[in-house]
């Protein structure tokens, strides 16, 4: 109780962003057949755990839930993966990750300089704008943006896999050196 009372507004706001981003991601990615008020409770619970423990594995689990939910709704239920819905899910996924990364570093009772949160918001907006541009290029280049197999997806995917391997090697090099 005493710990809760000491909670400062800055960390609380960042954890609030984690909660709303995770809840929005789960809601948007959920199959339409399941979308009802009763779904709100498990979504809120999963998002709450992510907000309460931003430094734990629960954030990764929540993000995996969003992805699994997305794959299920588009693959098992055959829902169309519209560009708007896909991008919104991607943004929610990224914001959950980014806000949780920030919240994990802020002690719950810390007095946070406003500039820290403003700068974080600016960086997040920049990433989202850049992602929108990349997504636009993907849409322009792809002849058909549907959840079916396409040569472009395979080639693009392989390109990003190569990039990811490079990043992984770079990140791993941090520990090895």
């Amino acid at each position, binding site marked *: 109780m005493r710990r809760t009372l000491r909670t400062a507004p*800055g960390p609380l706001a960042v954890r609030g962003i984690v909660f709303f981003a995770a809840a929005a991601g789960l809601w948007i990615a959920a199959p339409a057949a399941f979308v009802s008020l009763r779904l709100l409770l498990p979504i809120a619970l999963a998002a709450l755990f992510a907000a309460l423990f931003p*430094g*734990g*594995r629960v*954030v*990764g689990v929540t*993000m*995996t839930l969003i*992805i699994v939910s*997305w794959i299920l709704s*588009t*693959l098992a239920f055959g829902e169309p*993966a519209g560009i708007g819905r*896909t991008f919104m*899910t*991607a*943004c929610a*996924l*990224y914001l959950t*990750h*980014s806000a*949780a*990364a*920030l919240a*994990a*570093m*802020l*002690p719950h*009772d*810390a*007095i*946070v*300089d406003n*500039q820290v949160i403003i*700068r974080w918001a600016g960086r997040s907006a*920049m*990433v*989202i704008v*850049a*992602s929108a541009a*990349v*997504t636009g290029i*993907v849409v322009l280049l792809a002849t058909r*943006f549907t959840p*079916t*197999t*396409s040569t*472009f*997806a395979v080639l*693009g*995917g*392989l390109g990003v*896999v190569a*990039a*990811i391997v490079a*990043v*992984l090697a770079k*990140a791993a090099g*941090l520990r090895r*050196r």
Partner: protein
Amino acid sequence: MALRPAAPPREPEPAYEEELWVPTRALSRAVLLTALLVLASVLLGRADLVVLAVPLAISVALAMTRRPTAMPGLRLSTVESFPVEGGYLGATIEVENRDTVGYDLAVLRVQRSRWLRLEDGDRPHVTLVPRGVASAVEFSGPAVRWGRLTLGPASAVLVGADGLLATRAVVTGALGVKVYPMTEAFVADEAMPRAAGLVGQHRSRRPGEGGELAGVRQFGPGDRLRRIDWRVSLRTERLHVAATLSDRDAEVVLLLDLLADAGRSEGIFGSASVLDRTVRASAAIAEHYLHLGDRVSLIEYGSSARRLRPASGRRQYITVLEWLLDAHPVPAAQERGGAQLAAGISADALVVVLTPLLDARSAGMLAGLVRAGRFVVAVDTLPTGLTVPNAGTWTGLAYRLWKVERENTIGQLAEHGVPVVAWAGAGSLDTVLRDVARLASAPKVGARR
């Protein structure tokens, strides 16, 4: 024949900077999920999964381009040089970015003594540290109790690359802060039992209240209005006073009974323990007599048996305050008697014993001092309104019995010529000092000089 090098081979220097910055769980999460999404998109032939991975991949790529590597600088400092309890103390934690990229944030913490009530000092502070800039977080608050307090160590955890990299805690050393006791207002009758120097025959060389003119100087704080030299003041258009030499040469010995402590110390704004009252009263009495030009010395009645040589003047007052900072009650199994203590005290000195009379040896010491012919005044430093923890049904009765026994001891001491007066600040000692002065003027038989 192969020659061996005389010096041992140099060991490779530990790479602190590389080890300082470590990846956070967010980095592994972002990389793992991005890889999974891309692999799934390849395996399932789904371009929408690539779109889901794009922001995560871009954020990791952008973050890795501005990866910090250097060791940050951290410094803890305080600006106060002569803080008195109740006064405000300022502290600053400064974190310096020596890197080529900015840090996202720095989480700064400072540990401090419980008597330093720095505003929001018990909370971590998070601040931005741009490239090539030193960010500072300032704390301010009152030091609520005298003593040698500690400020620090301060620690900083720095976060860079959009929360994907963080440092281990960078820690500074701790600072020692001396907080001097606040002297309660104390004024005493000038009736001293016996001065070493006789007025009119040997004038003192020390400035103070007296009749011998030492010169004319500018008016300063603490000067009496009747000392103003109006002719010089009118001529120079600035207030001047006639400085005189002290014609008193009395020695005041403050004997601090540190055998036991009692009561709860809550700082300057709360209740005071025996030790608090002893130290504050000692500082007040010392200040008063040193201001008058007398010599003051201090003796500790406890296991450490410290002693401060008699001296006068402003410097001695600072020395007294420093000396008092190290006063701590330490129970001692064997303690010197009054006769042994009296051997080191001048026969003409006024001995002010600050004692809570909690230990039976304290009363014995007082009686021994009087028997040795010293002029003794006992100041009772036991706090009023002392509460006793209830340990059983007999606690109240036992406490009342103890109080009666203590009053009996005080009465017996009075019969032996030791006036015991409760410490109450200004004027506490006036009545008893007059009694002691009267006793001193009476002829004494067998007093050791």
